[in-house]
């Protein structure tokens, strides 16, 4: 069972407290009516499905209830880092510096 750091609680807690919520950094368009059918289709259904580091959303559903973002390696399953919703995806350099 993975351990996940909630950036709002600032605590590392068991996976049981969290729920997965799909790929991160896919913002709902401000005015969906301006999008073509293809653009709207891509927003709805097209995801990156990476092998490696993946930016994804999690919710501390059995805790503080907040949605946050995470970088997770889809090969090892392990979390690289987590960060608050609205913050930019951390650059690899920032990650190295933090280590």
């Amino acid at each position, binding site marked *: 069972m993975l351990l996940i750091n909630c950036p709002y609680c600032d605590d590392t807690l068991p996976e049981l407290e969290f729920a997965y919520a799909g790929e991160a950094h896919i*913002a709902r368009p401000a*005015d*969906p*009516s301006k999008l073509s059918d293809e653009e*709207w289709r891509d927003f709805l259904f097209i995801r990156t499905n990476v092998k490696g580091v993946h930016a994804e959303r999690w919710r501390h559903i059995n805790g503080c209830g907040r949605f946050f973002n995470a970088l997770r390696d889809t090969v*090892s399953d392990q979390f690289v880092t987590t960060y608050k*919703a609205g913050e930019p995806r951390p650059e690899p350099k920032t990650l190295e510096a933090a280590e």
Partner: protein
Amino acid sequence: MTQYRVTGRGRVDQGTPVKFSFDGKTITGCKGDTLASALLANGQHLMGRSFKYHRPRGVVTAGSEEPNALVGVTRGKGRFEPNTRATMQEVYPGLKVESQNKWPTLAFDLGAINDRLYMLFSAGFYYKTFMWPRSFWDSVYEPFIRKAAGLGKAPTEVDPDTYASRYLHCDVLVVGSGPSGLAAAMTAGRAGADVVIVDENSEMGGTLLSEPQAQIDGIPAWEWLAGAVSELDALPNVRRMTRTTAIGYYHQNMIGMVERITDHLATLPEDAPRERMWRVRAREVVLAQGAIERPLVFDGNDVPGVMMSGAAQTFLNRFGVLVGKTPAVLTSHDSAWHTAFDMAEAGAKVAAIVDTREIVDIGLQDRAKELGIPVKLGHTATATKGRLRIKGVRVNPVRAGSAGSGHWVFCDALLTCGGWTPTLHLFSHTKGALDWDADARVYLPGRKSEAVQIAGAGRGLWGIGAALDDGAKAGTDALKTLGKSASVPSYEVQKDRIGTGVFHKELPTDRSPGKAKAFVDFQNDVTAKDLRLAVREGMKSIEHVKRYTTNGMATDQGKLSNMNGLTIAADALGKEPPQVGLTTFRPPYTPTTFGAFCGYHKGAQFEVTRRTPIDSWAEENGAVYEPVALWRRAWYFPKAGEGMHKAVARECKSTRESLGIFDASTLGKIEVSGPDATEFMNRMYTNPWTKLGVGRARYGLLLGEDGFIRDDGVIGRMRDDLFHVTTTTGGAARVLNMMEDYLQTEWPDLKVWLTSTTEEWATIALNGPNARKLLAPFVEGCDMSNEAFPHMSVRECTVAGFPSRLFRISFTGELGFEINVPARHGRALWEKLWEAGKQYDICPYGTETMHVLRAEKGFIIVGQDTDGTVTPQDAGIGWAIGKMKPDFVGKRSLDRPDIVAPNRKQLVGLLTEDPKAVLVEGAQIVDDPNQPKPMKMIGHVTSSYWSETLGRSVAMAVIEGGHDKMDQTIFVPQADGAPIKAKIGTTMFYDPKGERLLVE
């Protein structure tokens, strides 16, 4: 003393006999015996029958890797367990054991006829044999497979035992308590780390239990072991656990362990769980699991009496049992020579040591000579004699890879050793890399993905001294990462059995290899020939070979067979083993009971049961319940002599004619509040909310971003900045999660609070022409007239003195009210209404009547009449869309090409031609029942009921282009009988003008 017990030898208590029964026969073992050692002490090698051929099989190992000696163990009603390994079950007085996979007896089994049909059962036999003719499937193949399927009998009664579950956190978890595990635990424990050391056996020591001759720092092995154990026990920071198997190694050093608490006890202690599942989170893990001896593959290697030499050594030294009086040894590794020596010293007459190698350590050869044991080097084995017990082995000299002429060595046991495979199952669970050591020809631990150390034989080291030193080093390394330090102790070991050996594919033979039954997987009856056949038939990856032959798929999960299977498959492919691959090890390490996984989650504890504040009244009044999401809801209230049909008909009639009362407390309730509440509601729901006045209510429809219906419910505006949102019973948590998601991540600028209030309110629905008459006298603070309090309104007032949110709404089509009061007053209010309602023949109704009444009105149930592919237009509720709103969740999707495409499935009403015919929900619908099969299905029935009110059946269905097919006839084919004919129409079956809502 039993025939094969050696006085003064072993760790069992020879002074304390233990009587137990095996296939109804009383057997005497000793305290400390396993079932296997006790049976062997009585000369019983035959312990089971193989799965496919029902071949007689004896025990081959002394540990948890045992593939053959699987038995059924029972201790009374509900306490039967199949496939227990005889090598792990400890004997106790009164233990009852039966052998498996035999009929009528273990020694004479009719199923062994399969053995004569060998050709029928070769590799891939499931795929080939049962292909044709087709008609044989029902009459021949399937009954045969069903009869043959499964190993052992499944228990049929409820398991009366309890299973516990615990969490544990530690600095260092040591798995395995042989020399390397003990050294690691002592090193880490002495330095003050929190240490847990576990072993699957009944006592700690591992190899030391089988090698009493060794001396560690001048102290005999068993004395040293006792000292080590008492030192660990004296350390308050060390927890020592026996009979505990580490079954799986999960992410971030979480290890699952199963502790067997009562299976070895003669009497069950009161209230003790049978097993306990431990979830351990360790900062560092030391895997000291040792190595598993590899069988040699030759014709007849599965006859009872052929066993691993290390097992024979364990049975002798740990249990004081000679597995044979005239054993022969067949080996490719030095370790088996020591077994021969130990047995000779214990009084056995060793018939021969046959070694496949030309060159063997001269010291071993000298010792054999001293003990008078004949030695044959550079030999192979080509056959065995004996059916229920080995009588002899045919051995042949090998010159340049081919076998010369053979001769028989007579023996009553054949102890084989094909080398040792490092046990890396748990390491493999972590996705740690296994590296192929081309010289040693074994896989060794490579790149690690967890904080883990592997020590001792698990990484290919051999000998007690090497294991101790390596364990101590692993302990120190673990301490280092914990920020603790310790000096590495070193150990002096005398009489250590340092050895070496080689690995083989199947041994060379002078006979037709096509006729040889040289077994690789004993339990699944997979032979070397099967593996080669699989390769010839195109299986190139070891994963394919495994599935085609079933090699390694038995309950021992390939512990004995994987490496032999890989070696032979690789040879057949002309490749090196790593090019062919290694099948993935998966948890659990050994078979684990369902009980251990379930833990406390069974019976009433299996799942939470949510009950409304009125649930107790329903129970006292004879309600029949149905589960809805996690709730239990009153389904119907039968009177004496009534079945469901009658009760529901009566409840419907009473409600429509006078008054019904219904517990609607399970409805999801969410408060949406804050200055931006209206804007939030406008964005979430399809409907417009800006102009909805305070005190008014509206049907709300929630879509996913894909435009499909997700939920619905009536929403009341309590204040400018406060909405009382209701959701479906099952959808409450999902809807709140979805609202939170949008609020937190898409529109964090909106000032809105979301609060789940489902359990804060008890909700009582009153429906029927007399609803107002009953309710009005209880109400204060609300003018109940049609004009002042119209349909689709909400008021804050008191009802029977309780503060209330009173809705005038209807899910039945009758004059209706829903009274929300604080949950603690729910039952009190219900009883007051109940008492006063008797003058109107008030009738409590359940969810079934609720469903019928709403269906008569064509109200949908999300999740029943919709299925995640239904848009508001499809469902015929396009009116609920605020067309003037610039945006809401799902709006853009309603213009997608496939959403506006013609011929989508649309919700319609169905009336059967025969009014008495009630369609089955889920039944498929066709245009023409006479078309050839497979017919084109154009939709399905979503809701269907008998309507007592209308005196006929009513149904709803989704049908392709249904809205344009009014009055057309469709058919619902039946499994038996003629198709049912029905006509498409409106879903509004009853009171289409809605006049009944307006009763004065």
